[in-house]
Structure formats: structure tokens, C-alpha cells
């Protein structure tokens, strides 16, 4: 360019003039969406408890129901809209995890059930599983050592 601008100067210009994220709106939307999803799960949980299901089974069944709901809403082209509105509030609950697995499965079905659905299903959820399992192993080890020492 005629008037040379350095990469550093340019990055500074871009950062200075970039349209900002709507932080307050996003935080509020995430709070409401995440809260609503958890409230729905709580209703299922309390409903089961009132029907005499024991606590541990009720927890497990609630999770299963929420995963199912996340998958169905993804299949009905609804969960992407919830995610767009709620951001992290929609992706952090287990329904979001379900969405992250079902959405690539739907998209890559055209590439077949092995290299498409099978291979691409964990495209987004893969890292969550890898590091989630890794973190739980580390936490388990620390817990085990803690018990030994105490």
C-alpha cells in the first residue's frame, strides 16, 4: 500500500473499531435459556420422585429424557434457534451436548453411515468427551489419593 501500515498498527485499528459483542444481552439470554432448560429437567425429576421413583433412578431418567428432548428438537430444526438465542445457556446443559452429536449426524448422513454418520458424529462433542473423561480420571485419582492420605 502507498502509506505503509504495519501489521501491529492494523490489528490495533481493527480491535479499536470492531463492533462489540452484545455482552449483557447474551449473558441474560444464556441465563434465561439455561435456567429454563434446567427448570424443565427439575419438573421431570420432581414428577418422577412424586411417583415414587428413587432419587438415583430419577436423576438418570431425567438426564435420558433431556438428551432425548435435545435430539428431537435438533431433528425438528428447533434447537439451532434455541442455541442462537441462548448461546452458552443452550450449549452447556446436556440438551446442548445432544444437539452437538445429532447435528453432525444429520448433516453427514449423505456421506454414508460409516464414514459419514459414524465418523463425523463426534466432530463437535469429541473434544468434550476426550477432556471430560480425562478430567474425571484426574479428579478420581486426586480423590483416591486424598482418601489414602486422610
Amino acid at each position: 500500500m502507498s502509506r505503509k501500515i504495519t501489521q501491529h498498527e492494523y490489528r490495533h485499528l481493527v480491535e479499536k473499531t470492531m463492533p462489540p459483542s452484545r455482552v449483557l444481552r447474551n449473558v441474560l439470554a444464556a441465563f434465561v435459556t439455561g435456567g429454563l432448560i434446567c427448570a424443565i429437567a427439575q419438573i421431570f425429576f420432581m414428577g418422577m420422585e412424586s411417583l415414587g421413583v428413587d432419587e438415583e433412578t430419577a436423576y438418570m431418567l431425567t438426564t435420558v429424557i433431556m438428551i432425548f428432548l435435545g435430539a428431537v428438537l435438533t431433528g425438528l430444526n428447533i434447537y439451532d434457534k434455541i442455541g442462537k438465542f441462548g448461546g452458552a445457556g443452550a450449549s452447556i446443559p446436556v440438551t446442548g451436548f445432544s444437539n452437538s452429536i445429532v447435528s453432525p449426524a444429520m448433516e453427514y448422513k449423505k456421506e454414508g453411515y460409516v464414514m459419514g454418520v459414524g465418523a463425523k458424529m463426534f466432530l463437535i462433542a469429541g473434544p468434550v468427551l476426550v477432556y471430560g473423561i480425562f478430567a474425571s480420571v484426574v479428579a478420581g485419582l486426586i480423590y483416591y489419593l486424598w482418601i489414602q492420605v486422610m
Partner: protein
Amino acid sequence: MSTRTGKQTVVLSNPPVVIGGAAIVGKKEGDGPLARYFDQIIDDEYFGEKSFEKAESRLLRDTLVKTLDKCGKSASDLHFIISGDLQNQCTAASYAFRDVQVPFLGIYGACSTMAESLSIGAILIDGGAAEMTACITSSHFCSAEKQFRYPLEFGSQRTPTAQWTVTGAGCILLEKQGNGPVITHLTNGTIIDMGIKDANNMGAAMAPAACDTILRHLEDTGRNIDYYDMVLTGDLGSFGRSILIRLLKDNGVEPGDRYNDCGCMIFDLESQDVVCGGSGCGCSAAVLSSYVLELMNQRKINKVLFVATGALLSPTWIQQGDSIPCIAHAVSLENIQ
């Protein structure tokens, strides 16, 4: 025969004629402000095909057929098809034209592909290697999302600088002789990388490339920006556009109202939920071959500098932490009769 002027500009001494063009776009583009200029608007994102990739190929094929029909030509009149898209290995174009028995040049310049295609086509015609070429590019929102971003049904938010890939294709027929605007100059850009690493901020990544090519064009041709009735960049989006205006002003060039960006024109940024505007090889191609060409043919505007910009990245390079190399090619279209 083409000659050179200045550092990067080609002067076409037998300027190829834009004898016609056509654009086919998707539903969202058909709801935008340029709807009435497009030749066809398709409501089905699959375009009757089994996948988004195949739909994009069909977009290209149908756009070529429509353009040939409008110009009263047939595929056998073509000496070259110069085409590209955003799919890996440029496959939308290769599959689109596999049954058309015309020499095929597949090119990739990301969103700058239309200007690259016009450059090659114009030089081939001016140099006597072809009588008629078809320059055609496409993009498809769904196939691009799949390749560059997330699956469609994945719930996520876009960043404030993101753009929306246009579903559409645009085709221009260039001929040695005929009626229509002509291509007089080409300024092909060098690759400019200002260190932007955010693939969701391609407008900012590409603006310096557009600035460099525009300044180079003006310097090489000795023209002032006022020479043009319209200066168009191909999909910098609203943020990239504002940065380009600033960069040009810093260099003493006042673009004024004659300057606009195809990404800002194809959608209504306020109501269509596209964040900073459109992008993709189909964006500038569709705007040029419909709206701009019609204005030129009606002589409402007579001199257009078409500067399509491209972010030459791939998800692999971005994941490896590298920045985004960008390019801009300028094509000068003029009514000279």
C-alpha cells in the same frame, strides 16, 4: 494484444465485451433488496438434488444455461468455461460442467473468484485464444457452513463480525465483439496478509487487500476514483467496508457514495439477520451479473470498478494458528460506445 501499464495493470487493447449475464440465487437472497434483478430465485435449498454440494453444482449449471439462453448462444459457441466455487477442490464447478463438452478452467480465489475468472477470460479473448468465454462462480450457504463452520442444526451464535455465505451463482459471457459494456483494464492483486487470524472477521482481513489493489489500479492507470460511477468491492461486509473507507482516506482517496460492497447490497443488514452481510464466490458474481450489468446496460452507470476480494484460508491453516492471506482483483468495466 494486452499490454501492461504501471506495476500490476493489464490494458486490454481489444476490450472483450460483456454480452450478457444471469444470476440464480436462494430464498434469503431473493428476500433481499436486489430480488427483482435476479433471473431466478429458488426456495428449496436442495434445488431438487440430494445434497447441498449437488445443489450448488446445479446452481452453476442452470445459471450457465440461463445466461446462454438470454444471449441467444449455445454451449458449443464457448471456447472456455472459467469457473470456481468454495467447495474443497472446486468440485461444485467440476461436477457441474462434466457433461458440457467445453474446455474447462477450474480456479480458486475464494470470494474473489469472479474477478479472477473475468481476468482470465478477458486476457484469453484479448490475446486471441478465445472468441467467447463463460465466467461463472457460485457459493451455497449450507455447503460452505458444513465445510468452514458447524453443521446447520448445531445451535451456536455468530460473532459481531461474521458474514453470511450467499447461496447463488452468477455468470457473465465475454465475447470478442458484440453489444454491451467492455472490460478495459485488469489490476490483479498481490497476496496481502495483515496478520488477522479470526476466520469470523474476514472483512477486516480482506480490506487491506482491497485497498492495495484499488490504490494500485488508480496509480497504474493515472485515474482518479471520480473516474468511476461505481466502485464495488466483493463482500467485505459492513465492518470490512468501513475499514476500507478509512484506509482509502488515509491514503488520500475519498471513495464517497460511488463506493459500495456487494455483501452489504445483497441483503438488508437490518432485517435479514446476516450480521455484517453476505460473502462467498456467489455474492459478488450474482450482484455483478444481475444488478450492475442491468444498470450498465440501461446506461444509468457507465464506468464500474469491480474489486472482488478473497480470503485465501482453509480451516486447517486457521486451526494451525496461521493468519489469513487475502487478495483483491480489480476489473474495469466501461460503456465506451
